[in-house]
């Protein structure tokens, strides 16, 4: 599957490279726009929905979720985390329980459940149900979403971690996954695997729940691809945040090159991806994807990561302590003074295209506890360490002061890409 993606990407890059040079091309072959001006959804980095605790660097949006075919059996759900690093709408059961959404079946014919595990050791577990999701003036009709069950009583052993099934645990009412792929588990389709994959889709008609195949068409879906128009990608637009700010607001713009307000300027930095990854060169080391196999380690852009996470080359930056007044901060950097750094992003398919990014690493503990910053929600200099083998994660601080394009992998139409300026 990965190999196939890479071949598609290669073909796409040839097309782009011939006409447009190494940077800033609007991909051709994008479905035309429909003249809509309602493709802009407001987003806010506002600390999240819980009264007791701030969610630092979480960009949130409000969407309307309806039973398929109904315009009245609906719930307006605020504070979904805008996540360009995952795919699909996931919403807490408590927010949509009154809608009685219909089940979506796994390939064995019984109601599908899904376990999605995240890099932080958490998971979301619950049934796959069909819903119509409206964001600004765009509607994704009858798409599979994940409803996060309020009980984890039937959690299968292969789905292990902290089930974040309440607002207090998740810090959000759900996740709005608008990443590079149209569905969330291409490898779960029976055309791609001879054995059902775990943790992914399950049947719970008898316990313990058992892993199942899941056709692409029934998988939890990137809602953007289900729009009638403006369905080939998104742009996240947020203002600059130099160190920290109480809150910031911005836009999630639907479609790329389909309307007057979502054009990709020729001056933008444009990156093909390989296995949905690209390369970042930092302190002389390349954290890059294998261009043949499209396997990692590789680097990526992800609005759902709440800091810049990158390898601590030569252990040059002090990591925060585990025992601070605001809890375990070992996921973040705490340099004695702010560090000005730079790294270079590189197109893995067309490596002659590179672009340098300057960024600053602040002291997370000082930001989270300082008298003037402790109640803030937006932190432009928040960063933390990862193992070298996991690459460079350009999280939400990267988005401050930029327009960041996520171009969705649409076979025969468009290969997945990132662009920004």
């Amino acid at each position, binding site marked *: 599957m990965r190999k196939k993606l890479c071949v598609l990407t290669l073909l796409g890059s040839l097309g782009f490279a011939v006409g447009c040079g190494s940077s800033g091309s609007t991909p051709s072959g994008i479905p035309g726009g429909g003249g809509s001006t309602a493709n802009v959804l407001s987003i806010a980095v506002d600390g999240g929905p819980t009264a007791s*605790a701030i969610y*630092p660097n979480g960009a949130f949006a409000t969407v309307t979720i309806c039973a398929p075919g109904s315009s009245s059996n609906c719930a307006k759900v605020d504070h979904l985390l805008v996540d360009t690093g995952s795919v699909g709408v996931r919403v807490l059961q408590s927010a949509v329980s009154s809608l009685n959404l219909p089940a979506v079946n796994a390939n064995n014919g019984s109601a599908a459940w899904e376990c999605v595990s995240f890099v932080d050791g958490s998971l979301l577990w619950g049934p796959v149900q069909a819903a119509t999701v409206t964001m600004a003036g765009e509607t994704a009709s009858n798409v599979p979403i994940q409803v996060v069950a309020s009980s984890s009583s039937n959690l299968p052993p292969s789905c292990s971690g902290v089930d974040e099934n309440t607002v207090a645990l998740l810090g959000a009412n759900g996740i709005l996954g608008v990443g590079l792929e149209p569905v969330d588990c291409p490898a779960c389709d029976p055309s791609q695997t001879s054995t059902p994959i775990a943790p992914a889709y399950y049947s719970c008609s008898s316990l313990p729940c058992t892993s199942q195949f899941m056709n692409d068409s029934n998988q939890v879906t990137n809602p953007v691809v289900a729009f009638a128009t403006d369905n080939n990608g998104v742009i996240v637009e947020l203002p600059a945040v130099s160190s920290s700010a109480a809150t910031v607001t911005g836009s999630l713009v639907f479609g790329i090159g389909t309307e007057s307000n979502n054009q990709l300027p020729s001056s933008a930095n444009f990156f093909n991806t390989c296995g949905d990854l690209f390369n970042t060169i930092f302190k002389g080391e390349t954290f890059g994807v294998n261009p043949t196999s499209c396997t990692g380690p590789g680097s990526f852009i992800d609005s759902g990561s709440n800091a810049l*996470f990158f390898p601590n080359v030569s252990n040059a930056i002090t990591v925060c302590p585990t025992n601070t007044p605001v809890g375990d901060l070992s996921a973040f950097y705490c340099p004695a003074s702010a560090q000005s750094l730079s790294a270079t992003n590189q197109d893995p398919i067309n490596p002659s295209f590179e672009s340098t990014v300057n960024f600053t690493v602040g002291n997370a503990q000082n930001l*989270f506890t300082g008298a003037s910053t402790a109640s803030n929600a937006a932190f432009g200099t928040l960063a933390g360490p990862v193992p070298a083998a996991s690459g460079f994660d350009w999280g939400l601080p990267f988005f401050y002061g930029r327009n960041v394009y996520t171009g969705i992998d649409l076979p025969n139409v468009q290969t997945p890409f990132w662009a920004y300026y």
Partner: protein
Amino acid sequence: MKALFKRSIPFTSWLMVGIGWLGLSCPALAALGGDLTSVDADRAHLKASSLEVRPAEAYEVHPIQAPGGTIISEYVSSTGRVFAVSWHGPFIPEMQQILGSYFQQYSAALGAKRPYGRRPLNIQEPGLVVQTGGHMGAYFGRAYLPEMLPPSLKADEIK
């Protein structure tokens, strides 16, 4: 004014994980901290296939590939103990299987109070390190027992 952290994971959440752990239908021989047979136990439990063993000075790397493509590499010392496990690929492996008897320590560390946010793990516990990275579709992680690392192996070489 909001505080900048969330509460610890409630005990009931961990009770649920604990129940899952006790209820594991195929009780695992420990992986991390276990002996060579635990590599085979993991392979069988995860329905994975073996890849070629990579010998190195003072240790061997036993990689297996799970359905879906994630490669799990178990690092086995010259005395036959698994002192490190790494994974990379589209899916995060079943942690209670690969961490074996260290799963409870890992779980307790996950429950520590920390700010909200999607982020990699950097657990540095006495005798246990767990670090992760990546995002949906491309994950990396490693767990190791720092006191058991051979002098010739740097932590960043566990990948």
